[in-house]
């Protein structure tokens, strides 16, 4: 306890001199309390005629009692805007509810200045419920209204900024979609007797992905080259790398007919372009295919890319191992591994990026993995490229937010010969 406070109850009222001081203060008359209250008071008849008003409000407005009492209506004290608001909102509400609090209005002083106020009114009724008069208190709200205006202004600014940000985001989305499309072939070329299908899943509408693929003729529509890969990272840097990779592989394929040589060229180009503390690399599978009779011979080379999958026309699916192939663009003497495969009618070769195998599934969010992909494809066998890619697209969609990376799919196959077809040919 604070010893200086004195008195047994701690209020200080125990001391005779303090008590006397309070008494002197409380002689403040009710009349003076009304007239000099720190807020405006007024009473009006039910038609709004002012019957009584305190000195505080008269002082604020610069009016005399004689000018106001019996001569003015409450709404005469308001700005025209305030008057309209009073007539359309304030007065009806007060009539219906008998009480109304905290309404923002603007009064007009005798000098013409605007006085923002907060008004509270109560209807006094007779014993039998007949409304007699309206009692109103008026608080100076200059500071508060300035603050509120600032809040409103800030809200408008925030709303405009948000609208602008949304518009910018939309423009960015459109620009990125165009850019992303430019990194992929507009359409795959038609290859007689061969069916192809592709799909690109974009993980984020505002981030450029780093997967790529292409398929194009190298000479006389007899031989076709193709590739599919995944550059490190995402965003504009990845897109630049993708662009360089794609055009390098295209140009290389026109010169060399060996996929391993093509990967070496890409390796050299990337090492040359990305030096020092900004190494950039990719994984890729590059292939060359040539039609011979009823089959297609494919020569594939891989640099650090997941193995291609062959879905057989007579059922089953198998990976083409290219184990040992190294990342492209990481080391000067990188090793790449190649493999040959012959596709027969009904067989489909699938190239894919690791978005699909690294998708998270199930309650434990486990990796989807290579075994599951193989089983999924085998379950569809025999499946042509279109059917296989459509089924995989559905699978990707089913992953939902478990799929957070871009995914590219490219499938090449020979249509199966149906029995009727064989008969017709016979």
């Amino acid at each position, binding site marked *: 306890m604070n010893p200086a406070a004195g008195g047994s109850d701690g209020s200080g009222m125990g001391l005779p001199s303090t008590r006397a001081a309070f008494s002197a203060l409380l002689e403040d008359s009710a009349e003076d309390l009304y007239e000099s209250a720190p807020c405006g008071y007024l009473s009006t008849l039910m*038609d709004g005629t002012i019957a009584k008003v305190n000195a505080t409000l008269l002082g604020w407005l610069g009016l005399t009692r004689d000018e106001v009492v019996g001569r003015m209506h409450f709404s005469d004290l308001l700005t*025209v805007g305030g008057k*309209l608001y*009073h007539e359309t*909102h304030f*007065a009806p509400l007060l009539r*219906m509810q008998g009480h109304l609090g905290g*309404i*923002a209005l603007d009064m007009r002083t005798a000098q013409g200045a605007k006085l923002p106020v907060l008004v509270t009114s109560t209807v006094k009724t007779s014993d039998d419920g007949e409304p007699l008069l309206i009692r109103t208190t008026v608080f100076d709200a200059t500071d508060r209204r300035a603050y509120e205006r600032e*809040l409103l202004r800030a809200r408008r600014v925030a709303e405009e900024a948000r609208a602008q940000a949304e518009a910018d985001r939309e423009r960015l989305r459109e620009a990125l979609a165009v850019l992303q499309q430019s990194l992929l072939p507009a359409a795959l070329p038609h290859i007689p007797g061969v069916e192809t299908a592709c799909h690109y899943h974009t993980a984020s509408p505002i981030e450029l992905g780093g997967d790529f693929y292409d398929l194009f003729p190298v000479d006389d529509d007899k031989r076709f080259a193709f590739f599919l890969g995944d550059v490190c990272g995402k965003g504009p840097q990845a897109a630049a790398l993708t662009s360089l990779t794609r055009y390098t592989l295209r140009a290389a394929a026109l010169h060399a007919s060996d996929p391993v040589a093509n990967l070496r060229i890409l390796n050299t180009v990337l090492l040359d372009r990305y030096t020092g503390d900004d190494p950039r690399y990719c994984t890729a599978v590059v292939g060359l295919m040539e039609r011979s009779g009823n089959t297609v011979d494919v020569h594939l080379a891989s640099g650090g890319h997941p193995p291609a999958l062959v879905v057989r026309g007579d059922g089953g699916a198998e990976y083409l191992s290219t184990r040992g192939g190294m990342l492209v663009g990481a080391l000067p003497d990188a090793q790449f591994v190649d493999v040959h495969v012959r596709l027969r009618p009904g067989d489909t070769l699938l190239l894919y990026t690791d978005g699909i195998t690294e998708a998270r599934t199930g309650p434990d969010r486990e990796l989807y993995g290579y075994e599951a992909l193989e089983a999924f494809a085998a379950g569809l066998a025999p499946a042509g490229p279109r059917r296989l890619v459509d089924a995989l697209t559905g699978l990707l969609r089913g992953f939902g937010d478990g799929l957070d990376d871009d995914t590219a799919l490219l499938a090449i196959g020979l249509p199966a010969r149906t029995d009727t077809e064989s008969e017709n040919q016979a």
Partner: protein
Amino acid sequence: MSIQRRNNIRVSGRTSGRTVVLAHGFGCDQNMWRLVEPALAKDHRVVLFDYVGAGRSDLSAWQEERYSSLEGYARDVVEVCEELDLRDAVLVGHSVSAMVGVLARAAAPERIGSLVMVCPSPYYIDEDGYRGGFTAEDIDELLESLESNYLGWSAAMAPVIMGNPDRPELGEELANSFCATDPDIARVFARTTFLSDSRKELADVTAPTLILECEQDAIAPREVGAYVHSAIPGSELVTLAATGHCPQLSAPEATASAISSFVADLER
């Protein structure tokens, strides 16, 4: 959504009586009529509704374009009349709804047979040779007043206005809710109300028309009442011993009896 729900239509009174449709003005909703409804319901079938955007109407049906002209509000009135398949009804329009009534009657004369205009004004802004009582700056000031009283709207009022049937206590806590409107909607209604010029339409009114005005009205002064009276051929003007812009609240008995005797004259 049915028009019934969209416009929160309520029908009361004597089913065999002539139908009186009560259309609220800018500011509040059909509650504006609560003091005259019981008196009118004794002899008449009374139809109450809220314009889309006001009161308990379906706010999702509100479209800025439609409700930026008085024709949009008139379509609400006509659609309410069609919903109830009204014939030869009396349309009582308060304030801006008096002018909406003129447009609605022109669009559906078989449904709306006569008009009662409560405190009408065909144009609020002063012009050479016409005194509406206000300047364009005054209207801007009103819009500002609206703004400052709607600061808390989105946070506190919206859930109430949107309707919370499972939490009725909300409606009671926020007693001012029936005059609360989404600020965007109120701004459009205020602009449409105070900036529309319907003077030209008055001369074409052929329906029996009663004009009710107050002795003192800050929004529709008596010279405006006289203007409307002289512009509508054969109209009847009654000046109520009331002040303010809402005689249906400040002088409900006089308002109801003026409407009733006008309707009684129609029957003769």
